[in-house]
């Protein structure tokens, strides 16, 4: 599956290199993994061959919908005064750099008409997060296993990481997860078939 890196971060070349190996097989001989190092995330990705066709379709759909994050602007519309625009831009920039406020990510669930938002900083670990999601969305998420993912669950939690890839929640260490998670999607278990089979 060819994927472009949509977002330009401060990733080094190795991190942006596409790999199709099994998770854990690529040995990063350099530094111990730090939670903010994106290069480590790539190592733990599941290979594309494990994803079934429908999942690939969903992901490429997501890629297309990201193409223009902003639309072409009509002069003076919407009618927001320039000093407000400047302040909003400044603050959006700041919050993406700093650690000050929460770490809010959107949560979508297949079949639900609208999205929710949660603050990842509010949770301490995957157990708390899944419990929170189950409470909020009233859905059944099974138990995670490294081997089988959420195989058998009615709903499967996935997330989009900084590179635009869709990942299974639980694969990477918690700290790494909260620093790379951009949004969550609770998929129907039937669509996520194949993710659990190695």
């Amino acid at each position: 599956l060819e994927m472009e890196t949509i977002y330009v971060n401060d990733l080094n070349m190795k991190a942006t290199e596409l790999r199709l190996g099994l998770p854990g097989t690529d040995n990063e001989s350099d530094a111990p993994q730090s939670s903010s190092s994106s290069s480590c995330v790539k190592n733990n990705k599941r290979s594309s061959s494990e994803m079934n066709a429908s999942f690939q379709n969903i992901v490429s759909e997501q890629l297309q919908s990201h193409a223009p994050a902003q639309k072409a602007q009509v002069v003076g519309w919407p009618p927001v005064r320039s000093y407000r625009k400047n302040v909003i831009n400044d603050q959006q920039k700041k919050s993406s750099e700093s650690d000050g406020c929460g770490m809010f990510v959107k949560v979508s669930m297949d079949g639900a008409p609208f999205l929710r938002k949660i603050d990842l900083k509010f949770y301490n670990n995957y157990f708390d997060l899944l419990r929170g999601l189950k409470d909020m969305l009233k859905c059944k998420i099974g138990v995670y296993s490294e081997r089988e993912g959420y195989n058998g669950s009615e709903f499967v939690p996935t997330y989009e990481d900084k590179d635009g890839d869709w990942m299974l929640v639980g694969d990477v260490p918690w700290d790494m997860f909260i620093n790379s998670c951009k949004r969550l999607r609770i998929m129907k278990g039937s669509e996520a078939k194949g993710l659990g089979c190695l």
Partner: protein
Amino acid sequence: MGYSFPEEALEHVLWFLSSDKDRNSVSLVCKSWYEIERWCRRRVFVGNCYAVTPEIVIRRFPEVRALEMKGKPHFADFNLVPEGWGAYVYPWISAMSVAYPWLEEIKLKRMVVTDESLELISKSFKNFRVLVLSSCEGFTTDGLASIAANCSNLRELDLRDSEVEDLSGHWLSHFPDNCTSLVSLNMSCSGSEVSFSALERLVARCPNLRTLRLNRAVPLEKLPNLLRRAPQLEELGTGAYSAEIRSDIYSNLAEAFSFCKQLKGLSGFWDVVPAYLPAMYSVCSGLTSLNLSYATLQCPDLTKLVSQCHSLQRLWVLDYIEDSGLEALSASCKDLQELRVFPSDPFGAEPNVFLTEQGLVSVSEGCPKLQSVLYFCRQMSNAALITIAKNRPNMIRFRLCIIEPQVPDYLTLEPLDTGFGAIVKSCKELRRLSMSGLLTDRVFDYIGTHAKKLEMLSIAFAGDSDLGLHHVLSGCDSLRKLEIRDCPFGDKALLANAAKLETMRSLWMSSCSVSYGACKLLGQKMPRLNVEVIDERGPPDSRPDSCPVEKLYVYRTVGGRRIDMPGYVWTMDEDSTLEFS
């Protein structure tokens, strides 16, 4: 029979009349009443600086103490008026420096104010007290320094939303040590760091200071120093509301807030760190006005904050408040009169927050005094508008901005005509209306039929034909300001309703279908209107008469054509056909 009412008695009675409308009526009774009234008019309001000249004002009213004036058209706020268009205040200051040595107040909106003007003000008027520059530009901190240094009796210096070029933060230090008269200081729009110790000393020596709006550069840790020196403050604008999380800063701040028992209004809150919010909770129950429109707080923090402000009458907030926050607002703030919800991501393609029409519906249900609304959102339905209209027949100002142009009712995919129709039908006292979304000529029919008290109407990307414009111009009896952009309105309605334009302050039309020929004709027919074509493509004469103009600004005036137009503005008047022939 020879008995006449003594002049002195009339003058004494007139002294009690402050309303311009009343004074204008008095002056129409007879010549002697006109004379008496004009000698004792102290306050003059000029809604359009080009509607009259300084000489005419000075000739009629020789004893003015306060001038309030507006310049550029409202759409200048959204960059629709090119640079250098006009609205220079200098000629007014220059004339008044000679005619009104006792002038005390100048309040300007959307005007160009130079340092030269500010210096002239500071040196010409010995008893100068109030300077309010709202959405003005053209001056630097040097101009402010002159005001600070020379106006020894200054009470108010309010620069709300103006653009000031920051050459140095030291302008504040120019207030002399014996200046103790300040009542209101609003420097929130300034970018520079002022000398904090100068600010502190200034605040400390002004015992009547009631309003203090700081700029973003004033750090949170320093705020308690100011609050302690001014516990009598009624309106406070904080600087950046963020600091390292330290308990000493927190407790210092909380204690300082607790001393301010008169605080009614709060604003500022740039870069807000939620951990510091509880420090201000002690003032929440007394707040009547809260401006959080720069505060990038998320829904839970916003909700918690507004839910404690039970006396709130005015709230300005970002759409981070979401529907749930607005529902909490409607439950907690029963005195709410004005709500403005601004977009946090106006240019994003997708919604970033869960704010829909439902938030506004909740507030309209729960807040019986709600009369003034500005609401940015991404979806709307006729059903919601009908509900809002039914809930709030007392609405006076209703400005709805659906971010994407021409978006229909998201439930039925129909135009929003019936929804806005319900608003104008139900809200009989409606004075101001801004519309958005998909709208046909029908909505204008409703407006012309029902909106009899409407004074200001803003239209964008709406309507099908000239009929729409005709409905408005022929039906809205109280219309004073009409601003239109990107609508298929053309010559017919404009020319058929030319006389109406003399009863209004101004008409703005941009990206519509009004031809150059029609503009010329209008200018010829109506000598008491200034018909100004704004076109950056070069002289309209170089194109056929049928070619639509880029922008048109028409306003009534007794001052004749203006003489300060930039190269891209052309006045159409009786001579225009002669000039270009």
